[in-house]
């Protein structure tokens, strides 16, 4: 009997897998005892009780079988005994793509519920990266990754549009606080805070930029926003492409170093915070010479230090808080948002389960950019929808742009009649603006024009 021949792409996937396997992943790949304790931790399973193929252990086994057949001795010698198996065709890779991208948001809920400590999300991401390396990925992942590589941000926002938006938001801020000097500083050297944002804010939600600017203004912060390399999101986290992850993270870090910023503050974004603060240094292989924090922590600090004052009675509508999986389960950011929420809103209602045990909004893992899986995503959102409904809140607050979109979709689909907001919106609403004399700041576009004429250039990605 002749052995079946593997396609070129399958061969490359296996080569990539060999390079990407580390001790943590190998241990997770061999340690599963098929006890099934992870099953009910997964929102896909809970929303699809009749389909056992959503079980995390089953999904993990589709990667594990490949590992066993090619890297583990028992699987090599007795493949049928341990369900080891190979892939041969591109069609089989496509099927695997639907599992690793379409049936898992890498939320890590099964990982924290596994008695063996099997971290499925980590090797699922690894397999995503292997497939991406041969061009097998959802269309949206390809488009977004390309934008992030080529244009420098994941939504393909052009520099001119970005700066115009900042200019517009500066005008809004000036009008709101009635201070002509209250402008967004661009590329200011030696700032105490360099503020990086999600391109979604520029494209769909510029109000969050104005809100953040208002808070920095009221706190009298010495801050700035970069004119380039301002995107703190990183699609490498979702695509599993560590080269993209490292390149994007490095770009931002080097920009902060170039501006001699003391601290990088990232706006409210789960995957942005995780990839910039927690994973980026590992992907980029860099030791970071400045501090990094989420704007949630920054806002809380301003309140604790008395740098801003708030009137919580301006937020009286009942609110609940949704923990982003990346923030809570992968970066430990779950107490600060609650503390802040309690300081700026009068009626905060906890969701159950919460913190690191929270359910995914179903928009995680890049799912919002994979429209082919939208019906499945919305169906699996039933669990989150029930959680939201049970709180009785009218506003769900979250510190993540992906979650904002994911939750907005669910609220519309399940007719929950709720609104999604971010902490920055609530803080900006509650903040008490004190009249003061601020340091004059140049208009962004004028400042940029001056810098362009003095020869400042964009920073390329270093491979």
């Amino acid at each position, binding site marked *: 009997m002749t052995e079946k021949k593997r396609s070129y792409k399958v061969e490359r996937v296996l080569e990539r897998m060999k390079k990407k396997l580390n001790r943590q992943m190998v241990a997770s790949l*061999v340690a599963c005892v098929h006890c099934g304790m992870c099953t009910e931790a997964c929102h896909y399973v809970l929303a699809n009780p009749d389909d056992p193929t959503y079980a995390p252990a089953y999904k993990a086994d589709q990667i594990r079988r490949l590992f066993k057949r090619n890297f583990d001795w028992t699987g090599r010698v007795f493949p049928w005994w*341990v*369900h080891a198996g190979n892939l041969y065709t591109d069609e089989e890779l496509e099927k695997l793509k639907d599992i690793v991208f379409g049936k898992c948001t890498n939320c890590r809920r099964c990982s*924290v519920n596994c008695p063996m400590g099997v971290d499925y999300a980590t090797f699922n991401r690894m397999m995503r990266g292997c497939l991406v390396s041969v061009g097998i990925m959802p269309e949206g992942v390809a488009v977004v990754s390309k934008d992030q590589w080529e244009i420098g941000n994941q939504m393909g926002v052009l520099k001119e549009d970005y700066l115009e938006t900042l200019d517009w938001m500066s005008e809004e801020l000036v009008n709101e606080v009635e201070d002509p000097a209250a402008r967004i500083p661009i590329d200011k050297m030696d700032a105490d805070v360099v503020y990086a944002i999600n391109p979604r804010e520029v494209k769909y939600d510029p109000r969050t930029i104005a809100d953040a600017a208002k808070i920095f203004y009221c706190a009298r912060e010495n801050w700035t926003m970069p004119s380039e390399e301002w995107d703190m999101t990183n699609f490498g986290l979702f695509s599993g492409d560590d080269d993209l992850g490292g390149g994007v993270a490095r770009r931002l870090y080097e920009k902060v170093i170039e501006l001699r910023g003391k601290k990088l503050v990232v706006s409210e974004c789960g995957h942005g915070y995780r990839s910039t603060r927690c994973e980026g240094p*590992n992907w980029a292989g860099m030791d970071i010479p400045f501090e990094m924090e989420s704007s949630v922590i920054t806002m809380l600090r301003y309140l604790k230090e008395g740098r801003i004052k708030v009137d919580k009675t301006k937020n009286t509508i009942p609110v609940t808080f949704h923990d982003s999986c990346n923030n809570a389960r992968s970066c430990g950011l779950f107490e600060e948002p609650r503390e802040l929420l309690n300081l700026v809103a009068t009626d905060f209602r906890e969701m159950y389960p919460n913190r690191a045990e929270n359910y995914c909004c179903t928009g995680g893992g890049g799912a919002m950019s994979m429209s082919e899986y939208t019906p499945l995503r919305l169906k699996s959102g039933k669990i989150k929808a029930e959680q939201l409904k049970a709180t009785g809140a009218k506003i769900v607050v979250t510190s993540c742009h992906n979650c904002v979109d994911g939750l907005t979709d669910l609220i519309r689909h399940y007719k929950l009649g709720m609104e999604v907001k971010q902490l920055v919106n609530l803080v900006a609403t509650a903040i008490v603006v004190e009249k003061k004399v601020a340091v004059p700041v140049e208009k962004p576009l004028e400042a940029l024009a001056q810098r362009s004429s003095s020869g400042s250039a964009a920073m390329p990605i270093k491979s």
Partner: protein
Amino acid sequence: MSDLLNFVENELQLIALGFMGLVYILRIRWILRYKAGRDRQAPTGSSNTTSAKGAIYSLFNIAMPWAMESTRQKFFFYLQFVFFHLAVAANILMSFLIPYAPSLIKPPFIFRSLQVLFAIGCIISCYRLYRRLYDRVINLISTPDDFFSLFLLTIWLFVSIWAAPNHPDQGEGPLLAYFVLTAFFLMYVPFSKISHYLYYPFTRFYFGRTMGHRGVYPLKHSPQPKPTKN
């Protein structure tokens, strides 16, 4: 005691143990060949925890049924897990006690207690086999190795009930069966899912180290809020 029983109780066990040890050494070397990932970034989350705390918490996670939602919600399954593993551990211990310290299990209270424990383990094992056959998810993910390993343990626990009194003078059959099965078990384990305990320290340590560094472990529980008036 016959020469055959003497051989299976002693030399055969040592050969099987030696084989298992050798394969385990190779297995650990294989895992260690893979580079361990590291966390370059500064710690996040609660300042009350560290990588070390996270790793320790993770390693002992299994002894804290309250620590994970899965074990909290399936407490009966957790109890089964505890008794099943206690029975297996006691059985392994007995395979050393019978040849090397038989007096320790001679008191009727001791061997009767062991018999009860093995019987409980055997019943749980049967239930687990049933679950593997009839639970749709578990059946889907079960491999022949999963079934065989569980079947082997069920038989081994069953036989150990009869071997526990250690009365070769009343017939060597149970003891012969017990030690032959033990030897087979020792040789098969390194190639089966039963060797999961070898990987447990690796998965738990690294996962806990990362989660501790990121302030997630020890996990903070999220108590169910009291119902609101609305």
